[in-house]
């Protein structure tokens, strides 16, 4: 009996309905299913668990979260303001569907338009779609987008691009028979080597793509030159960026990027073991680009009687439900609620809150770098400017370091060789991250604990 979830589960209602239908049992509703495939018994899923039991079970399964998380590698432990959780908990938002009926869905439509508008400002771009799944699939879509726009089939990316995202990009491009070429990194700075990049970009290049910060936490300071190289060969200049970094440095749009992707989960959403996330996808206002955009787009408009400003989905002829196999992407359900969270977050922090936050992260990163490089067994192998993430090389086993940290409730660096040996380059690297949740005291504690291992 599931009457707590289904009002018509009661015997009384059920009998009434079946009588109206002229049948004796719900089994007759499945009379069109060939009997040889009909299950006689329900699948074995165990008995149903009541509310109190379920909460008790969940508590018993989950250990307490760590006190401090310094793990990097593409995700970091950011603070979530209570207002973001509260707004995202409004059922009008979270239980609604994609806004197919704009008159009944102005709230979500306007919030998504605001997300598009705020993100466009933050990135220095003009058009942002209403969300993709995550940073990785946004990069995958970017690769496909660049191939559609330029009708070329080679994508040049920096070696220092996050390897999880590289994998997604390759999965997305594989069916197109596209070639993905990696431009090497300068060992000293941790930035992409401009000379190598220049030699790889040619008339068959659809897109040149770098990340800020890159996998090792390094900011590509020569982004403008890199984009220039792309443009000189008619390729799209593309960047992946941590949107918080965009509050501190000149945004990719200002540096000449045609296309920007990124992860919006950092903007007011919890880590949740990696997802749900928010794929950011932004382009310049160029009608060739806009017509090739993947995903939903919200536009501002007016009502037919001209009484009200209003919002609705636009350019739906790009999309799968109309264009089918000619669509720019298969995406339908994407990440609207996460875009709403980002919109609330950006509006709440405003220009000053975002700037201070980004500065704090920059200071923390700088201090962590300074403190760790004073310990003789740890070193910071790359000289370039680092933001939020920091690659640390060690002559000790990271397993030893991290298990000591964990015994004190602290999560240490992500050991690169564990999942991505090709990204370790024999340096025994771990990626740390530091966010606004840390202050000097927390960083000092981390460094003291690491000193204890020596």
């Amino acid at each position, binding site marked *: 009996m599931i009457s707590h979830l289904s009002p018509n589960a009661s015997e009384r209602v059920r009998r009434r309905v079946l009588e109206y239908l002229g049948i004796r049992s719900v089994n007759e509703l499945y009379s069109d299913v060939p009997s040889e*495939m009909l299950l006689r018994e329900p699948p074995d899923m165990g008995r149903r668990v009541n509310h109190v039991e379920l909460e008790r079970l969940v508590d018993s399964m989950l250990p307490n979260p760590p006190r401090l998380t310094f793990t990097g590698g*593409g995700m970091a432990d950011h603070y979530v303001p209570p207002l973001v959780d509260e707004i995202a908990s409004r059922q009008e938002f979270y239980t609604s569907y994609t806004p197919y009926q704009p008159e*009944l869905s102005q709230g979500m439509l306007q919030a998504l338009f605001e997300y598009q508008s705020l993100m466009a400002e933050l990135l220095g771009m003009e058009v942002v779609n209403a969300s993709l799944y995550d940073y*990785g699939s946004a990069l995958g879509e970017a690769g496909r987008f660049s191939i559609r726009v330029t009708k070329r089939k080679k994508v040049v990316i920096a070696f220092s691009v996050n390897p999880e995202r590289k994998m*997604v990009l390759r999965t997305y491009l594989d069916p197109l028979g596209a070639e993905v070429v990696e431009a090497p990194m300068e060992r000293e700075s941790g930035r992409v080597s401009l000379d190598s990049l220049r030699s790889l970009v040619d008339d068959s290049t659809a897109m040149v793509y770098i990340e800020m910060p890159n996998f090792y936490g390094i900011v590509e300071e020569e982004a403008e030159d890199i984009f220039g190289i792309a443009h000189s060969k008619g390729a799209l200049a593309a960047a992946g960026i941590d949107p918080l970094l965009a509050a501190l440095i000149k*945004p990719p749009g200002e540096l000449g990027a045609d296309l920007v992707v990124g992860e919006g989960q950092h903007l007011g959403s919890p880590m949740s*073991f990696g997802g749900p996330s928010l794929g950011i996808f932004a382009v310049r206002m160029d009608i060739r680009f806009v017509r090739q955009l993947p995903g939903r787009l919200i536009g501002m*408009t*007016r009502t037919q009687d001209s009484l009200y400003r209003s919002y609705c989905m636009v350019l739906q002829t790009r999309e*799968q439900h109309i264009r089918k196999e000619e669509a720019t992407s298969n995406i339908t359900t994407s990440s609207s609620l996460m875009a709403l969270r980002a919109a609330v977050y950006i509006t709440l922090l405003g220009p000053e809150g975002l700037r201070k936050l980004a500065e704090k992260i920059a200071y923390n990163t700088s201090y962590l770098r300074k403190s760790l490089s004073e310990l003789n067994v740890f070193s910071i192998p790359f000289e370039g400017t680092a933001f939020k993430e920091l690659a640390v090389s060690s002559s000790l086993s990271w397993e030893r370091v991290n298990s000591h940290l964990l015994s004190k409730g602290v999560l240490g660096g992500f050991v690169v060789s564990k999942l991505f040996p090709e990204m370790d380059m024999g340096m025994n690297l771990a990626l740390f991250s530091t966010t606004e949740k840390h202050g000097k005291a927390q960083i000092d504690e981390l460094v003291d604990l690491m000193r204890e291992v020596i």
Partner: protein
Amino acid sequence: MGFSQARWFSGDGVLEPTPFEAGRLGEGGLIIAEPEEELVEIVGGIEEIIPRKLIRKELNIPGMSEPEVARHFNRLAQMNYGVDNGSYWLGSCTMKYTPKLVMRVAEHPSIRNLHPYAPEELTQGVLRMLYELQEMLSAITGLPSYTLQPAAGAQGELTGALMIRKRIADLGERRDEMIIPETAHGSNFASAAMAGFRIVRVPPNSDGTVDMDALKSAISERTAGMMITNPNTLGIFEDRILEIAELLHANGSYLYYDGANLNAIMGWVRLSDMGVDVAHLNIHKTFSAPHGGGGPGAGAVGAKEELRDYLPVPVVVKEGNRYRLSYDVPRSIGKVRTFYGNVGVLIKAWAYLKMLGSEGVRETASLAVMNANYVRKKLIDSGFEVPYGRDRPCKHEFVISLAKLRKETGVRALDFAKALIDRGLHPPTMYFPQVVQECLMIEPTESDSLEELDRYVDVMREIKELAYESPDELMKAPKRSAITRVDESFANKVLWLSWKVYEKQKSQGELDR
């Protein structure tokens, strides 16, 4: 029961001003954290960290105080309609009620605050939940191996199609065609195309199921597989599904199952017993995770033994009493997104299935089907036309055609839908599937009460009568939602895609209004 949606109005045609109008550009905002003075003393000025030439000078984002932001977004919420407001019969979308307990479980601090690269000691609980979810999905579908990585149904389709593609390449075969029924969800076509397949369409026959003769002539040595939804988008069970599977398998082709409509048959028919090789399930439809206004969802993909080695990495495995993420999938298609999937969404499905248990799963499906049949019969008895499948029970949804009404009154399915809005009901899916003229696709789900079902039908009957009496009235609907009918063609003409684009056009004097 009457209805009037909130309509905040600030004058001059604007309901709720955007932050760009209400806030102070480039000024203010909530400081949640700032550099510590001590660190500034140690490190120096910001230009000691970031090269001066790179430092951003202008950030033209509006600043507002917390109460202003709270009011702004709460007003927007009031101008939106959710499942907890009322009936939401959006066909193929399964707008069922989300139990609040599943929301709370997913918000558990030990899940929220868990880094994806946290050590195994800390991930045992969440990995166990994911593993148990896979086991429960296996029990429901009969497909032994699962990935929970795809972020939505369409990404699940892409995943499945890529798995088929790679398997075929490994067999050294050249099969590049995917067969898809004309009634299929649009994403099937797009996903198969993204995976590099050419699409071959098959039409439905007069009873709404796949035309077997057309299918037979579509199958060739080029056929990689077929994507099918069962029950299909007309709400009809494809009763020759086994024959379809056998035809494909005999030809060396694969059967892909689109799980968008699984709510009708979970606990009653297993996908493996229908001959399915690989399938995606929509966690946000069948398994009660909310839709979030267009995501995040999740699209679990299940596969039979032959395709197991092609799943994306990593997969969740159990060794003794330990759970682990394994990258040992020899022929994996790679990754379709970063990390492991929309875990916060998947946990809701785990909690939901725990709440249902064996009996509950089967009962849920039968109640969804019962409600759909009840509404269908009531509508037929009220003179609505159901062009397909009247000779048999429908499953969780069905499709009505308003072609006759349009011919006689000029009222279109679109007008009909807008009139429903004025009566506080979210309209059904419109104009899909395209094989039915002027159609509405109706899926009441198991969450509506008998009174709500009756009311919706009464309203539909009333609107139909109104269409004959005063069709002009209906064509002016809606009047009682936050705004009147949107001008979508204007939206597509001006393309105000962001505030910046709008302001630029305004400053160039290109604005009509």
